[in-house]
């Protein structure tokens, strides 16, 4: 957990970087030498001290800069926040979950005081302090989901549970990976999870849906997903493709380890109590190949995973153009020695 927050950018001059501490706790996603698309859902229980899963929501050294980047994206494109009217209960559920978790887990940064339904929320890093009435939207400057969605790192989608499926009926989406569809409010699970190569055939999505429909309040789950992004850019949305799509052409053998970032999404899913909706959060972690190779174990494993990756998946993740450069750069770390199963750094 960070006690100081860095000043850095996720666009234009890209001053984003990871401290030694942040590199060490990076959620490396490959436990084995071969990558298989799977649902790999596990309970979202407390992880090791210092790990990204130590708390319900991870607040790290990038917190302030990331919230600022989110604000810029929302100003440029207000449509990145959307909520259908029947999701108001879920909005308050979200506000409660985030405020309670943050104030409990990081009392030095956040505090929540309840006086009946009159709540006072203080966010010290962002300099916010407000008093409002829980359940009464008119007492907040914006809708509750918008209000707290801006104060937590990552994207959030609220899914309504009806007709034996889930509908993405509210979302605040500002750090979307390039592989996903443009997020549209009201999409069903199937529309949203478009065809993932090799996953659709395996019925992975259907099984995941079945699992999620039974998700229980009090027992959240998580999984990791990954892709690669050029530059530490959070907003790689399809809408803004012209702004970042061309960056792929800039990758060469000299700059590959600086430009190419492994982008890991920590996805968590919570059943919300009052609304019976599900909160889907997608938290993005970025690390360039150079920093990642601080730990030779990771460099070796990443080399093996990338070398054996199915071309369909490389294409699906939008990595075709620079993928051979990544494999070549990583090759020098790989002595071929066997690695034990697990994602640990050392």
């Amino acid at each position, binding site marked *: 957990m960070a006690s100081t927050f860095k000043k850095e950018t996720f666009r234009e001059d890209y001053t984003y970087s990871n401290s030694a501490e942040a590199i060490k706790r990076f959620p490396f996603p490959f436990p084995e030498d071969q990558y298989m698309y799977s649902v790999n859902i596990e309970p979202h229980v407390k992880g090791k001290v210092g790990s990204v899963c130590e708390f319900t929501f991870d607040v790290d050294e990038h917190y302030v800069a990331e919230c600022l980047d989110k604000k810029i994206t929302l100003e440029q494109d207000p449509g990145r926040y959307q909520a259908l009217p029947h999701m108001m209960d879920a909005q308050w559920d979200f506000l409660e979950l985030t405020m309670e978790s943050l104030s409990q887990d990081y009392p030095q940064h956040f505090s929540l005081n309840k006086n009946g339904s009159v709540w006072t929320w203080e966010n010290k890093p962002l300099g916010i302090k407000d008093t409002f009435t829980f359940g009464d939207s008119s007492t907040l400057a914006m809708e509750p989901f918008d209000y707290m969605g801006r104060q937590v790192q990552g994207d959030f989608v609220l899914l*309504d549970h*009806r007709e034996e499926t889930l509908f993405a009926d509210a979302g605040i989406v500002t750090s979307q990976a390039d592989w996903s569809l443009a997020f549209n409010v009201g999409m069903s699970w199937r529309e949203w999870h478009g065809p993932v190569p090799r996953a659709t055939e395996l019925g992975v999505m259907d099984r995941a849906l079945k699992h999620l*429909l*039974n998700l*229980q*309040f009090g027992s959240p789950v998580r999984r990791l997903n990954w892709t690669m992004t050029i530059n530490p850019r959070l907003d790689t949305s399809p809408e803004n493709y012209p702004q970042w799509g061309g960056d792929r052409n800039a990758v060469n053998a000299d700059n590959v380890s600086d430009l190419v970032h492994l982008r890991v999404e920590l996805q968590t899913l919570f059943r919300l109590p*009052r*609304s*019976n909706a599900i909160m889907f959060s997608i938290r993005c972690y970025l690390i360039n190949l150079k920093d990642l190779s601080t730990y030779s174990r990771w460099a070796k494993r990443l080399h093996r995973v990338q070398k054996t990756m199915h071309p369909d998946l490389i294409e699906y993740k939008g990595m075709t153009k620079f993928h051979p450069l990544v494999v070549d750069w990583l090759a020098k770390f790989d002595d071929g020695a066997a690695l034990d199963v697990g994602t640990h750094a050392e």
Partner: protein
Amino acid sequence: MSMINAIVAAVEQVTPLVKHFTFVKEDGSKLPPFSGGSHVVVSMDIGGRVHRNPYSLMGSPEATDAYHISVRKQENSRGGSVFMHEHVTVGMPIKITYPVNLFSLAKKGHKHILIAGGIGITPFMSQIADLNRLGADYEMHYAFRSPEHGAFVEQLKKSCSSRLHCYIDSQGEQLDFKALLGDQPLGTHVYVCGPSSMVTVVLETARNLGWPERHIHNEQFLSPPVGEPFNIQLAKSNIEIQVPADMSMLEAIEAAGVEADYLCRGGVCGRCELQVLETDGAILHNDHFLTDSEKVSCKKIMPCVSRANGKRLLLDL
């Protein structure tokens, strides 16, 4: 499955057959909030055997100082409701699951028709609190045997006022489903909970009138039926278990110390599904979850309510 340690704070006889129980948290803190239509599973230790029954939460989802459930005494059941009636007293510790909702309101519905028969009123009590809070348009239709069996009528009169319609069988009052469902505006949802004969009539009437399937909701927890004893083999745990006549497969598996998933324990949610690897007899499917073709294929079984009658039933557990 995460459990809540609660204490019985009050027990009240509300009709000759129904008792109302109030639970508070053991440590005095608030219980989790929930959504209208939710249930909890209550664990009971009956002579060394753990019994788990699902009951709808009846209180307002807003008031989480206590949870409220009501239990109808089923004389010829396997003892869960009898135990609740005869042995559960004020001050007793009791373990319950976190609330689960398998009967939630359609939040986009324009109007909601709620139909309850007898003890089937329980899930609607919390739904009504939600509907009132949201200012939604609804009607509550409540049918029961005779005036003394009309549990909660007074409470409902207060919360629903003119939206409440009662039908007392002993006074010759009948609910005309066709008339009720035949004359509703577009975008109306219907919800039914009660005896299975009533649920069937409502579902059929709505379907015959052309209601879209997604506008028809029912909650019908089954209690595990009593049957002949049979044996099962668990492949991963590598053990053989006998399922006694008055125990469900799920209970027998749990009693043998093997962890198994569940949510509703009533054949509805699908969570307990097990893969059948081998079987030499018939599977007696009692659930509402598997499709007819899945039932015929005998590849899956819902151990919370279903049984078997062969010598061998090898499960992937």
